[in-house]
């Protein structure tokens, strides 16, 4: 067998390591650019190795759009500093006001202070409220102490498995020694080299040099080069130029990938409505393309408009009936709109699709419980616990605690919350509920401490603030009560009980 044919075949079958091995051997025998007669085989082997290395560390960067801490804190791409509600990700619609929206009372918040969606992916944790955004301390705080850290700019672009590859790769192509013009002239390897620089070395500047040379060589007629220039500029933060490149690329050749990249720019600039417009335009041409529909749905979700998002998720399912994300989103939407039976059906579909994880069984358990199928609920939680690890066991226990409250077994609930807190000392909701239970037991001081702890951990929860305020009012600490009630109103402006409380307090003050 010709080793090169074997290498190529393995490359096609995604056995990149074996392919790289063979290529390395071939290159060791005849180093590139040495003997003129061998130039062909070694050049081909070199190119194949370059492509294999690229594929090995390739990630779908269209899907991954997570901003690093630095980007979030020093975000200067947003165009409007004080946007109107619903026109910016940092100022989503307050949900209660619109049809299909789920009230903040019902739908809990994620750790970053976003309403919980049915599907977690990079980017759903983008912090939203003013207090957590722009605050270095909270931004740098991981979810659990000592276990995870926030995403940094390089973040997910580098996969764990490929961290060591970077070392190897650095020796493979000396990015700094490349002559952009010469590379660009070599038509058959230039694209591979640029991809290598982007995906393996993350050396966007160098890739941009080559791509700019190459695009001028072909008289700006190759959409691929233009979209690569755009990608590099996007990664380097030159967003306006990147946008121009993508638009020009689309003029040469309308591609779905480029459309998505263009929409990403709008998202980065914090212009959700423009992103939706781009998606909608693209959908005129590719109405069946699930990626575009998903994009729209996700934006609606980020804008806190689940009612609209759900229609798009439903549309996705017509074209792709096994889209896990859509099913999960629909399920959670139905759950939070008080239709646990419907949600149950969606979750059952996920089980049928072969999804097996703690979160799913936990949700199944909750649906069963609220659909009054108590016997099933407990065994679902059982299963969720057996699948859980340190990262999610606390949430399962928290939910079991809710079941405990629901069936009136407060002892069980108390123990569950205690376990949740022991597993995750930053579990704010569990602290809040513990506070309520402590109050029932008559331990006022402990209840108060729990509330305060809870509101300290999670600045986006209004419940502990309200609870604490109520408690302090009863204890006669009006000033503290007033402060707490105010912060509850800040988090959830439409909270009727907090308003009522504030009114009472104002009366008290005026009497004094």
């Amino acid at each position, binding site marked *: *067998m*010709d080793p*090169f*044919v*074997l290498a*190529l*075949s393995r490359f*096609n*079958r*995604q056995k990149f390591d074996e392919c790289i091995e063979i290529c390395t051997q071939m290159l060791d025998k005849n180093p590139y650019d040495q003997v003129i007669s061998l130039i*062909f*085989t070694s*050049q*081909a082997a070199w*190119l*194949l190795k370059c*492509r294999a290395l690229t*594929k090995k560390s390739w990630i*779908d960067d269209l899907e991954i759009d997570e901003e690093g801490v630095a980007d979030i804190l020093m975000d200067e791409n947003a165009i409007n500093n004080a946007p109107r509600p619903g026109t910016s990700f940092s100022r989503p619609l307050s949900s209660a006001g619109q049809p299909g929206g789920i009230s903040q009372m019902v739908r809990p918040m994620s750790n970053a202070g976003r309403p919980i969606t049915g599907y977690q992916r990079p980017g759903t944790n983008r912090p939203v409220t003013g207090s957590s955004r722009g605050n270095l301390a909270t931004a740098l705080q991981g979810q659990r102490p000592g276990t995870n850290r926030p995403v940094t700019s390089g973040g997910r672009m580098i996969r764990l498995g490929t961290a060591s590859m970077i070392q190897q790769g650095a020796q493979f192509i000396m990015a700094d020694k490349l002559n952009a013009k010469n590379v660009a002239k070599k*038509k*058959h*390897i*230039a*694209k*591979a080299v640029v991809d290598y620089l982007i995906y393996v070395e993350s050396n966007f500047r160098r890739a941009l040099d080559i791509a700019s040379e190459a695009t001028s060589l072909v008289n700006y007629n*190759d*959409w*691929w080069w233009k*979209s690569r220039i755009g990608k590099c500029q996007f990664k380097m933060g030159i967003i306006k130029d990147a946008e121009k490149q993508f638009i020009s690329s689309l003029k040469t*050749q309308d*591609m*779905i*990938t480029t459309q*998505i990249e263009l929409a990403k720019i709008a998202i980065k600039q914090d212009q959700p409505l423009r992103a939706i417009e781009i998606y909608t335009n693209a959908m*005129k041409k*590719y*109405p*069946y*393309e699930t*990626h575009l529909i998903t994009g729209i749905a996700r934006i609606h979700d980020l804008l806190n408009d689940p009612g609209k998002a759900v229609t798009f998720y439903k*549309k996705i399912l*017509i*074209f*792709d*009936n*096994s889209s896990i994300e859509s099913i999960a989103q629909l399920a959670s939407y139905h759950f939070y709109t008080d239709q646990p039976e419907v949600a149950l059906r969606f979750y*059952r579909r996920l*089980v*049928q*699709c*072969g999804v*097996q994880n703690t979160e799913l069984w936990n949700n199944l358990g909750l649906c069963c419980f609220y659909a009054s199928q108590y*016997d*099933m609920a407990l*065994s*679902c939680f*059982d299963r969720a616990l057996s699948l859980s690890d340190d990262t999610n066991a606390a949430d399962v226990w928290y939910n079991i605690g809710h079941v405990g409250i629901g069936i009136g077994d407060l*002892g*069980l609930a108390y*123990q569950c919350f205690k376990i949740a807190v022991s597993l995750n000392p930053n579990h704010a909701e569990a602290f809040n509920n513990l506070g309520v239970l402590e109050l029932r037991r008559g331990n006022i001081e402990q209840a108060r401490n729990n509330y305060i702890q809870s509101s300290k951990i999670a600045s986006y929860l209004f419940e502990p603030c309200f609870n604490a305020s109520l408690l302090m009012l009863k204890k006669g600490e009006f000033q503290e009560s007033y402060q707490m009630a105010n912060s509850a109103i800040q988090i959830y402006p439409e909270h009727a009980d907090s308003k009522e409380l504030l009114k009472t307090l104002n009366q008290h003050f005026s009497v004094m």
Partner: protein
Amino acid sequence: MSIFQIKELWSTNVGSKEEFDKNSICIGNVDNSDSRENKIIVGSFEGILRVYKPQADSFSISDMLLEKNMGSGILQVDVGRFSFTCDISLAILHSRKLVVGQITSTDTFSNFKVLYEHAFDRNAYNFISGGFGKSQKQVVCVQSVDGALFFYEHEMLLFQIQLPDFLIPGPLLYAQNIDSLIITNTNLELECYRFQSLQAYTNNNIAAQKAAQQNEQNKSRLEPDWICNIGEQAHHLVYHYNKISKRHDVVVVGEQTYFILQETDGKIRYQRRLEYTPSCIKTYHLPGNNKDIYENDDRNGAAIAAQAVQNQHDSPCFSIIMGSFSHYLMVYKDVQLVWTAKTQTAPIYVNVAKIGNMEGLIITLSDNGWLQVVYLGTDTPTQNVQISDPAQEMNYQQMEYEHQKILARIRNQEDEKQVEPEEKITITPQLSSFIEATGEYIDDPKNQLTRNEQGRIIRMSMKLQLQLPPNVFAETTNFKFESINFSGRQTPPVIKVHIYPLKNCFPTETKVTLTATYQQVSQNQEGSGQLRTSISEIQMPLSFFVTIGLPGAAKEPTDFKINLILNKQTSSAVSLFEDVIESLQAREMCTNKKQISFIYHNQVPVSLLVSKDDLKIRLQSPDFSSLWFILNELIRRLNDLLNGDGELEITFSDAIPLNELFQVIDEHSGYRQEIAKLKKVLEDRSYQFRIIQKRLLNRFKDKNPSPLNNLDFLLNHTYVQIIDTGSQIDQLHQQQKQSSLKLSAAIEIILVLLKIRFKMNEDEYHILRMHLSPYVDDESEQGWEDVTNAAMTNLLKTCLAKGGKGNSNISQTTNQIKTLQDASKLRQHITLVCDRISKGGKIEY
């Protein structure tokens, strides 16, 4: 486990540890049997050709018709009409030759016969076949690794040609309708060459063509008919003839996207982005009478989407099965995904064929040789989605019981007060008789550990620590024991400590504190159980600190004196200190019953005189502070002896000896200021030292240094100064320590005298003691003087304020403690406090 899985009809593992690619398999009636049954032909990279004819539901040995080692690796197999000898023949591509052969089979036996071979001088990659150039015969086109094409019409070589700018071979496609060859290049494009132009261009000399292409000046290049830039490496090319729309489609599968191109001009007319990396594709038809997969002209996209939404879309005419490397088979019907099925391995080949008598079975092959004939479907789950095993039905009673048990445990844990374990260590300090022989060290207390009554052996690890008064010395104050055995009736362990009074210091305190920290040790030598402590205290006897001298040895006019008046007659001075005299065996020293004279180890005498009527006691000593120890002892003894009925009154009628106190304070604050001054000097000197060092370093680093200018001398000098000042400070600290002791003793005296002079009760005394504290701390930044001054001011502003307590204004007192420049203010304040107290001011809050 997903219920959407492929259902297996027939499967086998082809070879063992052999490697396959997507071209290693083909399906057809290769042996031209009359029943026209399809056979599966598989050739591995290891060179073994196998032919299978799946029959029953599972693999049996008779399903394999042929197994033959071809001698060299098989790159591709295909069936077709490659020869007129038989209807369907088999073409096998090796690295350097193409073999066309015929398979004949009887009921029991199959045979492979070579019809013809073509050898070539370059390594082949793959081949395609078709009626190139409208030929009636099936022409084979072999692509070599370096981009040469060889066209064979049966036994004859038509021509060969080298493609330009070629680096890595990829899939190849012959578009019948336009008689063109479509290839991929490494510039992520597809190129289409007309067969005629290829034929016209070539000169049949590959080496010469290659050389010509190297030469870039050569203008007469082979130009493709069209180029389509798809921006991805194309992995699969399929030429699909749409029976309904009567048009030919070029289906291209890239890395993430799936395209349909128009064959005439290479425009992309359909694209779809995939969430996975496709591994194989099969396009096929379902019977139907409708339109094509999404078309621009007669069906617009919006219409299709609308149809799909209303679920009445009128395809299907063009379906796709796609395999992914994430182990899935996906079936697309027009633009809709209609089925997903999980496979055990990633399929690299998928096809639909009639096997046996069954139409539409799916054949898949994975690259490790797992050949499967499968169909799609779901079984109704055998056991209705049951979460737990039915045999193991939940026993609620038992669960409840368990729950209660755990709850009870938790409750116990919460309510339980901490219970001390039974075993504990008790320290029993004992003073043994002290040795007088040397007269220098005097005492040794024994720390005895009690016996363990229960009679079993307990092992403890223990640390013992002694806390001694400032004028007492012991060789070791820390004892550490890894494990001590305590057992039954044995004598408990004894630790002996020798302690000595210091000669250069007068006694103030007598208390020795013993602290033991211990932990029970289990068998494996590790401490278990909680760390616990046991503390005991012991008072050193007076006789430890003093000797008795001849009376009158210290009787000078400069002596400080304190006169106490009693309301009860005391017995003689000697009888008060009977035990001391006894233990010091100094009876002969005490001839005068009314007088006794103690001498501290620092040779300071303190005399005690009792008046004739036994109602007055006088203490005198040349050192004021030294009086404290005996005074304290005396009051204690008087209370013990005479205060049985609680009527003893000790009074002190003289003026409070504030002057004496002030002398001590002055001394102490003098030391303090001295130290502060020296510290300032030290700071200056060390700053100077660093500067000189820096300058010197600069000189050393400099290439052309300027002369030293006596800097080295300056450095030396400063160094000596620093060391000097340091040792001076050290000395002063020692002296200050002494003076602190004196000060605290003097304060104690004043406190006691104030107490008995103005008949304070215990509470008042306690508060006063808090303010005028005998505890002198030299370590911290704030000295005793500063704190005391602040405390005095506070007293004067609050409970001793001029208008009495009512006039006090607590809120006005400032909490800031300032550093005093000199002690005169403090003196003034202390005097004032005493004055106010004497005028009847009560110290109480």
